């Protein structure tokens, strides 16, 4: 049984110190100990990043420290993903994922796309700060089964609403399922439908489940 809390503490220590190699080692050790990608992301990496945010809030680390911890994490995630990767059978389901136009926090969205990829979804990851018109154009072009929109802060919620409205206006009856996520939705799940979305989820693994349930497998 992998000692997740000990690995988690080691990972946090590594990214807090800005030690890239040590972070990579912890993630490698986690893999050796049998932690799957979802557990690595959600039980190891995500709590560590939340703690980094808290450390900055408490003025114990700087903005640069936080940026470094995030950058190291993105590299560590890519390595973990590579190790977990297998040429899974395509499900014939697709998703476009974007952060709202003012949102820079993209790690959660990346976790979602990686976990969906492993399940055989075809994902189009657009990352942070995606302009509304640009996302709509991408959705019109790709015609995905689902769209995932991420917002980390409550000021970004009105941008989520604008984005959802724009997608629905553009796509009409062919509108994909729209799932939204991020901290404000964790605390207030009913916000999702209030903003015009179809669903929300508590984390990337939960979102994979929700999407699996809600999106028809037959194309």
């Amino acid at each position, binding site marked *: 049984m992998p000692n997740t809390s000990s690995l988690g503490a080691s990972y946090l220590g590594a990214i807090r110190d800005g030690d890239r190699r040590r972070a990579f080692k912890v993630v490698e050790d986690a893999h050796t100990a049998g932690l799957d990608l979802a557990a690595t992301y959600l039980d190891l990496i995500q709590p560590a990043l939340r703690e980094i945010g808290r450390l900055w*809030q*408490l*003025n114990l680390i700087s903005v640069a420290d936080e940026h470094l911890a995030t950058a190291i994490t993105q590299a560590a995630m890519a390595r973990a993903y590579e190790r977990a990767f297998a040429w899974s059978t395509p499900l014939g389901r697709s998703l476009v994922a974007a952060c709202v136009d003012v949102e820079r926090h993209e790690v959660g969205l990346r976790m979602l796309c990686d976990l969906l990829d492993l399940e055989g979804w075809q994902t189009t990851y657009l990352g942070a700060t995606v302009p509304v018109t640009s996302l709509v154009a991408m959705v019109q072009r790709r015609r995905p089964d689902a769209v995932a929109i991420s917002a980390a802060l*409550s*000021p970004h919620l*009105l941008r989520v609403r604008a984005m959802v409205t724009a997608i629905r206006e553009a796509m009409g009856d062919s509108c994909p399922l729209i799932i939204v996520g991020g901290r404000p939705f964790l605390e*207030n799940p009913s916000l999702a439908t209030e903003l015009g979305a179809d669903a929300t989820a508590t984390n990337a693994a939960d979102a994979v489940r929700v999407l699996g349930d809600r999106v028809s497998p037959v194309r």
Partner: protein
Amino acid sequence: MDAVTAEGRAAARLIAEKDAMASEVTRLLYEESPELAVRYGPIGRERCLEDIRYTIDHLIPAVDLGRPALFVTYVMWLDELLRARNVATRDVVRSLELLEQVARTRLATDESDAVAASIRAGLASLPAGSSA
């Protein structure tokens, strides 16, 4: 943004007048407590103005969506953040009180009522009788 409801109109006004309101709150805060200039220095005043703008950014969705709890979450986060940077809770309290006051002078009654609902929820979340 709903152009008809008090919440929607209030949020639209906050968006339009954010900078003017933040400047006014900062001015009033420093006028009534000149010692802030000494305690926090010139950079302090700049940061105060930025913080109040950021506070209005968080007030807007709480007002528009009729969810004071969104603003409460923010105020509690802000208070911890500022205390860690040696800004007293009572200064946060005062800036929120002045923000409500400034909103009352600029917005219609029902609009400023909508704003007050969130601001007061935020104030209620801070340690009682914050004179520390």
